[in-house]
């Protein structure tokens, strides 16, 4: 069964801006799914419509087989949302924020308190449970929003840039937590600007741009279609001129840094041989960006050019 099935979803705002131009999307139950796209592509609008914060202008949405337009409240029971912006009452305590949210989903007070304790402990917020939420750090507030989204035990968790502005250590602990709840059966849809995050966590991905899904499929399958990758080579000495390479494209050459585009599967031996012949000594080498990021950038720039 699909956890989420979207068909021809459209949204035109009152100012005439067409944020979604009829998108189709299917997320399998149990999946860890990435919805990627540049700023203003329509990701947050799509999430807003799915979570009933934004009225749609056409199309249909099914959540675990139930139609959102006719069984909205039943669908809502199955969805947990972590929005992009902090949106809890900052004057409340984390414990109250969680138990109140659980109450909105019909969870009785005793169960809500038990679950709040569980998630506050899992997300390392238990010590802060009785202080005002406004006094927490940015990373804590993000984790509190994850705990809040889970407190009614949803089957589908939607995270809209949950790790934005969070340091790498906390980000990685959040990844581990999300992987765990996904393993335990919760379907997750993630939007993020950290493509490394999507590549690490997600099995399937859809890329949206200008209100249209431009690519959709398994992460591995999409990456296998990525034809080239860019390597950054650090040189021992400053280059006075860019090397002339046969079979490889030099993207840039500045001081001691050289960027070369390599077709997937192409041997790097020829590259090093040519560089050596022209007097360049390479001290280190790395990918310019992760593979998904490279694929994403090419796709988006192609769409812009079109």
């Amino acid at each position, binding site marked *: 069964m699909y956890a989420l099935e979207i068909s021809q979803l459209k949204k035109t705002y009152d100012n005439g801006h067409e944020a979604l131009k009829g998108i189709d999307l299917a997320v399998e139950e149990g999946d860890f799914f990435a919805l990627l796209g540049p700023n203003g592509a329509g990701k947050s609008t799509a999430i807003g419509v799915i979570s009933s*914060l934004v*009225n749609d202008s056409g199309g249909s949405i099914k959540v675990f087989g139930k139609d959102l337009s006719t069984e909205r*409240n039943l669908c809502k*029971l199955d*969805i947990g949302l972590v929005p992009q912006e902090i*949106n809890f*009452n900052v004057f409340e305590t984390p414990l109250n924020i969680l138990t109140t949210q659980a109450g*909105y*989903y019909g969870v009785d007070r005793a169960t809500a308190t038990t679950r709040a304790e569980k998630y506050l402990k899992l997300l390392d917020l238990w010590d802060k449970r009785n202080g005002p939420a406004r006094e927490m750090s940015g990373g804590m507030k993000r984790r509190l929003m994850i705990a809040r989204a889970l407190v009614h*035990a949803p089957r589908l968790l939607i995270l809209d840039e949950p790790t934005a502005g969070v340091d790498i250590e906390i980000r990685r602990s959040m990844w581990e937590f999300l992987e765990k709840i996904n393993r335990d059966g919760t379907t997750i849809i993630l939007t993020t600007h950290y493509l490394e995050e999507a590549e690490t966590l997600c099995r399937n991905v859809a890329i949206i741009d200008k209100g249209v899904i431009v690519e959709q499929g398994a992460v591995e399958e999409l990456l296998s279609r990525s034809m080239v990758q860019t390597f950054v080579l650090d040189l021992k000495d400053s280059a006075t001129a860019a090397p002339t390479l046969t079979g490889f494209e030099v993207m840039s050459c500045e001081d001691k840094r050289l960027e070369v585009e390599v077709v997937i599967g192409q041997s790097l031996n020829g590259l090093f041989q040519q560089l050596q012949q022209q007097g360049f000594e390479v001290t280190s080498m790395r990918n310019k960006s992760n593979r998904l990021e490279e694929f994403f950038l090419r796709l988006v720039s192609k769409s812009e050019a079109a």
Partner: protein
Amino acid sequence: MNSPHASSRSIAAVNWVAFKTLVSKEIRRFTRIWVQTIVPPAVSAVLYMMIFGKLIGTRIGDMDGHPYINFVVPGIIMMAVITNSYSNAVSSFFGAKFQHHIEEMLIAPIHNWVILAGYVVGGVCRGLAVGALVAAVSLFFTRITVENPLITVMVVVLTSTLFALGGVINSVYAKSFDDISIIPNFVLTPLTYLGGIFYSVKLLPDFWYNISLLNPVLYMINGFRYGILGSSDFPLWWSFFVIAVFILVLAAIALHLMNKGVGIKS
């Protein structure tokens, strides 16, 4: 995670728990900031009773067959109830919009009428709490026995319901904090002061008497005064009729606005 998933719960049961949660959240909100919400109306009431009831009132004599202090006390209590039930709903709902935590309710499986009822009951609770405090304070100035307790309670609960509904509608349209103070300052206060708190409208010249009849607050204050003192400028059913009509109209408007998502959804 061993938690049973959410969809096993029935929507009716969910909404009942959600309603109780929302009401308790509203009560927690105004009691947490009691210095801002509960105390000021009591202080104002003391001043009104001291100045109009004791200092000036002793020179006025009787009004409608009652000592002046006894005449003004029901109006002063009602003024506190009206102001506080309105301002609780308007400030809480607008605060939720402003900080976006209204989204916590909008994404939850709660009917819009349950959200509306939660905010209205929250407003009524604050109105009644403040009304009870002002009534208690009035005992320092006079001894009044309530003639018709049931009518008194009915009028005060229905009136605070009406004004809490008005507060929600105001906050739905409000885009800034200025927008939530315009109605209380420029509509509610004049209507309340001219609603017969300090005088019987029978004393007014015909022209002003007839103008006063258009003021709905007049009937609420007189209904409440009837409950406490047993006398009113109008038949009691006028009061209940006016309050009921306003409640029905305002509830319909508020629910329509929420169903359309005006001011709360894109």
